[in-house]
Structures are given as structure tokens and as C-alpha cells.
């Protein structure tokens, strides 16, 4: 079961908002409803699920309803209609005290403008959630300090928030949220107020933290690059409605409609897509099979070279057709004729960083993991077509 299931969630602002519900069902647009009833549709029948441990990004331009949507999840804004199921329990139906308990234990929030308490020290800020829960002082200071250590700010524990830079302040915001050890982190444009370089650092840091914490993160942003960088899945919002939900690749490769397409047209794919996005399966051979088998394989598969690996897929080298026939003629072993120098990259290498290596080599790039195990290969054609925004099809055979 998904951790969070949002069903037909609606928020309408204005007097007697329930009036808008039948109109939404009739398919009236946000503009038309506003024109005729003076009601503002904030969120229009949002449906989505969030799985345990994923980073779910909700993105959209300002006014698309994303900030409203995230506040509906912990009911900082009361929904007009719909359900938010948390492990099957409807958050919308919780009483005030149940909701408080839920906020204390399960769902913490990080804010765009940090929202740190200026009259408290960094440590006291980080301890706020624990204090509200009634954790005794010594214990909560310990936990808060631990959270500060995680974000690298323990030496600033006794400073005031206004003595810190923006990036550091947001780390405190993050520490305050994780000190509580919640199941879900709600991050409302958490990095939008930061400089681009700092923002990128924070994104990296969040991903690193997430590698340790395995929280479920719901992240709001208006920045597509950010969404693509950190999101496991992305929901795109327009006029209060979700127009597409998918992995970053699905959204880039198969935009659901014109809106999404316009959205992604300015994306620099080379800085978003990685080698693992465009790589295809490599044709491989183990050395003991001999050069003749290798030649036969090349003919069958229609390729002019094979990657030589051991049984655990560790990359040993590359064997071209000429080298294979030379070995066959001279009764040599594959390992004697193959080229051991193979250009290789990690699966997370950005396409932008592959260009230079591709230009220098006639061979496709081998994608290997940290243990030198061959994961796949990247062909020039695949990179170019991905940059042009086309799907990389498995059947596409491009010479290496």
C-alpha cells in the first residue's frame, strides 16, 4: 500500500466554497468559476500516491496551486473536499488533537523562507518539534544536536539564526524537521530562496541525507531542473490540477500535453540526463569462448565490436571484428588481441560531461559501476537523439 494516497482533493477559496464542487465536476475552468462565482480554485481534484521512501516532487509555476496542495497534506489549509489517506487513515477526518499528534510524529515541514524562530538559538530551533512533543530537555538537546550534525552545523548550535547565511539557515530548517524523525518531510520550495550554486549544494546534500535517512519526501518547486535532479517521480501542476505524473525521464521523453512540452522545451537535457538514461545493453563475450565464437556473435548481432567481460561482468576490454579475425587466423586468445584501454564512465555521469570523451574515441563509451562491472554502453547517436528530446528506442541500431 502506498504511504500516502490522495483522492480527489479539492481546495476552493472564498465564501461557501462547496458551491464550486459541482461546477468542477461539470468541467468548468478555474477562470470561469472565478468569473461567475468569485471563488478561487486552489487545488482541483488532485489524485496521486506517494510511496514509502521516495522523493515525490510537485512542480508548477507560481499560482499553479502547488503550495496550497502541500499545505492540504498537513492541513495547514483545510481541504474543501477529498481524502488524504495515511496508511489508510483519512487525515482530513482527524480531530484537532489527532491532527496535532500526527504533525508531531509523522510529518515535518521545511519552509521556503526558512521560518526559523528569531528569538531562539540554532539548537533551540532544531529542538522545537521535540519540545512541542514534550521530550525532556536533555534528550531533546541531544537529538537536536545530532540533527545539526547531520546538516553540518553543530558548531553553530548557540548562534542566532540571523547570524547565518541563507543556505545555513535552511540547513537549520532541515535539521528542525529531521530532529523529529518524521516519516514524511514536506519541503515547500525549500531551496528556492537560495543562490543557484548554494541551491545545487543543498540538492546534493538532500540526496546524500536521503541516502542515509530513507524518508519519504514531498518536495515543491517551480524549478524544473531541480525537479529533474532530485525527484524520483514528478507531478506537474497547472491551474490547480495535476497534468502529469511520472519519472523525470517519462516526463522528458513523453510529455503528456502541450503544457508539459512547453515546460520542458528549455530544459538542457545534457545537464539532466545521465549515462544510465541513454545507455543500451552491451554485446559481450567472455574470453574463454574464443575468437571464432566472437566473430559469429558479431555477425548474428550485426555489430562490429564486442565487450569482453569476465563471468561477473567485470569489463576487461573491447574486441573489434578485425582483431577477432586476426586472432582466429593466428590461433591467439581474445585477451591477447583485445584493446584494454576502453573509454568508460559512471552511470551518473551527465551527458554534458560525455561529449569530450565521445569526441576522442571511435568506440562507444562503456558505462561501468564502482566495481568496474559493465552496465551498458552509450552510443553517440543515442546521446544526440536524447538531447534532441526523442526517446531512445532499444531497436535503434547505431554503429559504434
Amino acid at each position: 500500500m502506498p504511504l500516502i494516497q490522495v483522492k480527489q482533493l479539492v481546495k476552493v477559496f472564498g465564501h461557501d466554497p462547496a458551491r464550486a464542487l459541482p461546477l468542477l465536476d461539470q468541467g468548468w475552468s478555474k477562470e470561469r468559476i472565478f468569473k461567475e462565482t468569485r471563488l478561487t480554485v486552489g487545488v482541483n481534484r488532485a489524485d496521486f500516491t506517494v510511496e514509502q521512501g521516495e522523493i515525490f516532487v510537485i512542480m508548477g509555476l507560481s499560482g499553479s496551486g502547488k503550495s496550497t496542495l502541500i499545505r492540504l497534506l498537513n492541513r495547514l489549509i483545510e481541504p474543501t473536499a477529498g481524502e488524504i489517506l495515511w496508511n489508510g487513515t483519512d487525515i482530513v477526518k482527524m480531530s484537532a488533537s489527532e491532527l496535532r499528534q500526527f504533525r508531531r510524529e509523522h510529518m515535518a515541514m521545511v519552509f521556503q523562507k526558512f521560518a526559523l524562530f528569531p528569538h531562539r538559538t540554532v539548537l533551540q530551533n532544531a529542538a522545537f518539534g521535540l519540545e512541542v512533543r514534550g521530550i525532556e530537555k536533555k534528550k531533546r538537546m541531544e537529538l537536536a544536536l545530532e540533527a545539526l550534525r547531520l546538516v553540518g552545523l553543530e558548531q553553530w548550535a548557540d548562534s542566532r539564526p540571523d547570524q547565518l547565511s541563507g543556505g545555513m539557515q535552511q540547513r537549520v530548517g532541515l535539521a528542525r524537521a529531521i530532529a523529529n524523525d518524521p516519516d514524511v518531510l514536506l519541503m515547500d520550495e525549500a531551496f528556492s530562496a537560495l543562490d543557484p550554486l548554494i541551491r545545487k549544494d543543498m540538492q546534493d546534500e538532500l540526496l546524500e541525507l536521503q541516502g542515509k535517512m530513507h524518508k519519504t519526501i514531498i518536495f515543491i518547486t517551480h524549478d524544473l531542473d531541480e525537479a529533474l535532479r532530485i525527484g524520483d517521480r514528478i507531478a506537474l501542476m497547472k491551474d490547480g490540477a495535476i497534468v502529469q505524473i511520472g519519472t523525470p525521464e517519462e516526463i522528458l521523453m513523453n510529455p503528456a500535453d502541450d503544457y508539459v512540452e512547453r515546460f520542458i522545451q528549455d530544459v538542457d537535457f545534457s545537464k539532466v540526463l545521465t549515462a544510465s538514461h541513454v545507455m543500451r545493453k552491451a554485446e559481450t563475450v567472455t574470453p574463454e569462448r574464443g575468437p571464432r565464437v566472437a566473430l559469429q556473435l558479431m555477425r548474428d548481432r550485426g555489430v562490429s565490436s564486442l565487450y569482453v567481460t569476465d563471468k561477473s561482468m567485470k569489463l576487461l576490454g573491447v574486441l573489434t571484428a578485425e582483431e577477432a579475425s586476426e586472432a582466429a587466423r593466428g590461433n591467439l586468445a581474445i585477451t591477447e588481441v583485445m584493446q584494454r584501454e576502453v573509454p568508460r564512465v559512471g552511470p551518473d555521469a551527465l551527458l554534458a560531461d560525455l561529449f569530450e570523451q565521445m569526441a576522442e574515441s571511435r568506440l562507444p563509451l562503456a558505462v561501468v559501476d564502482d566495481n568496474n562491472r559493465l552496465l551498458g554502453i552509450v552510443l553517440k547517436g543515442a546521446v544526440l537523439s536524447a538531447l534532441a528530446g526523442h526517446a531512445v528506442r532499444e531497436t535503434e541500431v547505431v554503429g559504434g
Partner: protein
Amino acid sequence: MNIPKLPLGDWIETLERWLEDHLDPLFDMIRLIIGSMTDAFYAGLTAVPAVVIMILISLIAWKIVNLRLALFAFAGLALIHNLNLWEPSMQSLALVLTASILSIALGIPIGIACARSNALQHAVMPMLDFMQTMPAFVYLLPAVSFFSLGVVPGVIASVIFAIPPTIRLTNLGIRQVPQDLVEAADAFGSTPLQKLVKLQMPIALPTIMAGINQTIMLSLSMVVIASMIGAQGVGAYVYRAVTQAKTGVGFEAGIAIVIIAILLDRLTQGAVKRKKS
């Protein structure tokens, strides 16, 4: 056309008599509480030799403001003593302290309640305007009829006149707490009381203190008016000087009030600044 005059005055006097008849035990209790508060302050301020109080106040001034105010405090209080106005000044101070403490004790909760409820705010604010603009002399009369002559109706009149700034600025200070901070406190599951104690009051404190400062100054400004209904103190000297056209006595007593005013003002402002830094 001849529209008869509304018997507004009669109505008010009827109401006054009704209150007098039915709420007498309540008024007695209030009189007892306020009377004993002022007595206690006065007793405390005069239990020790004047010079002890002078040194004490100077030390407080030094601690929370600076040495200059400490020197001013000592010189000013010594002057009051020299003018033979020490005891009446302490009587007035007892009245001011009682009125201020009551104003703060009532005003802050009312201000908090107003900040939480727009309806209450809209009901209370016009009343505060009324209380501040109605000439203070006017409610001396019902105060006397409920509490008889003396310091108690003086304190009551002072509270009515002086409480509005504390209510207004408590309300304002809490409402001015940035929305995102309130949201953060809510998001972490604060109860309304936790939000008030851990966030709203600390952030609003400088504003509330500014209100308290004004309240103290306004209650001090009532000492002369309170003397008209029998409150003893340095205000009575001013009032007597006015009725007897004794310029010298009037100025002496006036200067004593000014000295106390400056001290109370700087001390309360200093407390705010200290809190801020």
C-alpha cells in the same frame, strides 16, 4: 419641529444606581483588593529610609540602562526629598504602580484574546477609543459613587484611562508575528498555548513592552486628576496649588512628577532594549 431631548443622562444615572444596588459586594471586594495593594506599595516604599530607596532605584537604573540615568535618578530623588515631597511622591508612586500592574494584568490577556478573535477585536477597539477620549473627569463620578472617595476610585479611573495601550499593542504585537513562523509552529503540532508561549509572546514582547510603557506614563498622568477625588500624593499638591494659585508649590510638585515620569519611562524602555539585545 421640536424633538424632545433624549434622557440619556437619566438612563446612565439609572444604570449607575442599579449597579450600586446590585453589585455592591463586588465593589467592596475590588475596593479591598486595590486598597490593600496601594497600602502595601506605600508601606514598602516608606518602610525603609528614603536614601535606601534612592540607592536602590539608582542601582536598578544603572543595571538596566546606564550610569547616567543612575546619577540622574539619585539626584532627582534627592531633590524630591529635599523639597519635602518624598512621602506624597511615594503615595503617588504606589497609586501608579497599582494602576499599572492592574492594567497589565488585565490588558495583556484581553489583548491576547483580541488577537485570537477578529469579532472580539472589533468589539473591544471602539470601547478603547471611548475610554481614551471620554474626559477622565467624567468617570471619576461613577468611580466615586461605587468606591467612595480616596485612592481606590483614583486607581480605577487610572486603569480605565491607561489600559488601552497595553491591550492595543498586545493585540498588535501578536498579530504582527510573521505568518510563516505561526505556520511553522502549527506544522510541528503546537497547541494554541504552546504557540502563544513559545512563539507569539516572545516575538511580540518588544511591542507589548512599548504598550506597558505607555500605560505606565498614562497612569502617572492621572495622579493630579485622581487627587480631585481624594487620592493622596504629589498630585494633590499640584491640585491644591492650582486652586490656591500658588505657582511655586505647583512647580515644585510638578517637577517631582516629571522626575518620576522620566525615571519610569527610561526604566521601562531600558527593559525593552535589554530584552531585545
